[in-house]
């Protein structure tokens, strides 16, 4: 019997799609060779349109609901553990390292799932102002967020470049290059976890092809870069981003409360007290 091979596609607005350009690039693993979408500027713009709607959809849900959706993602991965392990092995990892990485990824997702309805209790507070005022600072998600995942062959590091923004309510466009097969495989479990359309889009390709557009697109409110990019790339991103005072995070923290802080805006509300 002949084995059939999977075609990996981008994941945009809850659908598996090829690049509109038809272009692909190869990822050559030990066993398999995959031709995956080479995301174009137009694909990015489409993803932003989706992500804008996704931001609304994701934020309409209660924190409790969002928390359960993230938890469901960990359940889905747990059920497909073996296929992830063999994919990582195909990327050159030992069986033990692959297993550990998947277990770590599940732990990471469970950690963030449990944080969804708690982080605001840790980042917000009443402010003891000198006067008869009720004054509270609470946080809101910044909005459509682009994340560039690190090139490491690791599901755990991949999810750490997605979950901090997603946890606080941002919609995420995740972009992967050398590790893109892992990301596109993840999209299948994302698709089975009840994420609202557009809340998480996963793209593959070469960052240099779209960097100017990531910087220049005013609807991308935040660009979080988890891979160590060149000085030139940082300049292009920063210069284009400055046109709309875009939030840009280079190598943000990937653990603890500090991992979510780049993705929130603090809103402070005052009201007088009186009779």
């Amino acid at each position, binding site marked *: 019997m002949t084995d059939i091979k999977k075609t990996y596609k981008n994941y945009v607005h809850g659908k598996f799609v090829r690049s509109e350009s038809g272009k692909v690039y190869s990822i050559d693993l030990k066993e398999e060779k995959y031709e995956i979408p080479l995301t174009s500027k137009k694909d990015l713009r489409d993803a932003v349109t989706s992500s804008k709607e996704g931001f609304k959809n994701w934020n309409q849900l209660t924190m409790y609901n969002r928390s359960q959706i993230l938890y469901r993602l960990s359940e889905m991965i747990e059920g497909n553990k073996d296929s992830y392990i063999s994919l990582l092995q195909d990327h050159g990892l030992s069986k033990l390292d692959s297993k550990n990485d998947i277990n770590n990824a599940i732990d990471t997702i469970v950690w963030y799932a449990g944080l969804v309805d708690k982080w605001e209790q840790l980042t917000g507070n009443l402010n003891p102002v*000198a006067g008869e005022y009720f004054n509270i*600072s609470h946080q809101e998600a910044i909005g459509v967020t682009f994340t560039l995942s690190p090139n490491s062959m690791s599901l755990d590091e991949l999810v750490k470049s997605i979950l901090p923004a997603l946890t606080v309510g941002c919609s995420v466009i995740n972009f992967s290059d050398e590790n893109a097969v892992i990301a596109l495989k993840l999209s299948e479990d994302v698709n089975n976890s009840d994420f609202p359309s557009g809340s998480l889009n996963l793209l593959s390709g070469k960052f240099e092809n779209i960097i100017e557009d990531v910087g220049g697109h005013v609807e991308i409110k935040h660009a979080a870069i988890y891979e160590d990019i060149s000085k030139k790339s940082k300049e292009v991103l920063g210069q284009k981003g400055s046109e709309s005072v875009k939030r840009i995070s280079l190598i943000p923290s990937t653990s603890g409360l500090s991992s979510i802080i780049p993705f929130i805006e603090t809103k402070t509300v005052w009201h007088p007290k009186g009779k």
Partner: protein
Amino acid sequence: MNNWEYSESIESEKIVNIEKKYGNFIDGKFVTPKSKQYIDTISPSTEKILSSISIGNQQDVDYAVASAKEGLKKWSKTNPSERAKYLFKLARLIQERSREFAVLESLDGGKPIKESRDFDLPQVAQNFFYYAGWADKLDISWGNEQYKPYGVVGQIIPWNFPLLMLSWKVAPALATGNTVVLKPAETTPLTALLFAELCEEVGLPDGVFNLVTGDGSTGSHLVNHKDIKKIAFTGSTGVGKYIQKSLAGRDVGLTLELGGKAANIVYSDAALDEAVEGVVNGIFFNQGHVCCAGSRLLVQEDIEEKFIKKLEKRMQTLNVGNPLDKNTDVGAINSKDQLDKIEKLVNEGVADGGDLFQIECELPKNGFWFKPSLFTSVQANYKIATEEIFGPVLTTLTFRTPEEAVEIANNTEYGLSAGIWTEKGSKILWTADRLEAGVIWANTFNKFDPASPFGGYKESGFGREGGRHGLLSYLKVSS
């Protein structure tokens, strides 16, 4: 209506001692600028020359940054509770000399003494007091994560609240263990120079606080200096974008507190007299030279006529004139340049078709003045409805439903502040949740406190100043 005039009650200028010429404050002492270039700083209410200050050049900035680098060695070894004590002492000294500071601020900047005395100075002292107490509690401020200071921080501040902005910048930076090179605005450097004297007096270690006066070119040298680890800027969105662009590709922290075009939403179920007070305070406080000024009045259609009538009547009671007169509500426009900008935008507003109401009052002959102004019959696309005027000019738009109010309020690239006036609690919370702004005042406006974070959404900048959140602007996660 009785037309009773107030008798003059002028605060004496004699309390301040202004030098003819100032150098920079670097390495714990006043030094002659290497640039040897000076400009006059004048009183905008009389156009009288007060002093001349240096325009710092590259060499001056190099010297200040080198001094801050040296200062960092000492400051980082200073026990946090000792750092706190320096800041507590500064707070105390500011309180003791606050009358002097207030007069100087009003002279150099044009703001009413009532405001510099009762608002700016108490807030400045409180701000040092507040952040002093954080210096030895950083380890418990944001959980158990390891944060560390950036190092040498460059700070560039505007002319609208000169000493208050200094305190917003310097107090948290020093409390968190950074050292500072500060550049005040070229039109209002005098209170910062007096503050430098206090640093000498409290024995702050040399190099911890450095001051270089100058203009945009001096600021640019600071931003582009290779040894600066973080820039904190308050000013216009245009300059903020320029700074962000200049820093692109460099590993330099950045916080920006930029412009605004705040909506002050008055629902028809608001307590109207209180709302009128709030709207007046929201736009005419500090001549409207306030980034978070409530410059767009959004009034619900069914009360527009009534509300505008009340508003015009209240505006007419504003006293415009000598900033040192204790009865003055609205002082001088900070500079000729700013006055020109205001006049240009207001003229465009009239040309576009807006109805302009200005109060009847006599303006002093010398100095820069603009009558408190109100525009009605304005379309949302007029420049006066979209651009920051940064003067005593209020633009009125109307709405029918809460949804429309929110849509108009958010229809701007800015997102610094907003106001909501209604007696209905649920409507306040509904509206506040939907407004894209960093600070929201409900049934009040223009309230500030060192414990309360301040800063913008969208193109009003990023980062917060004040409160526990303000610490994060000067700390980074240690890797």
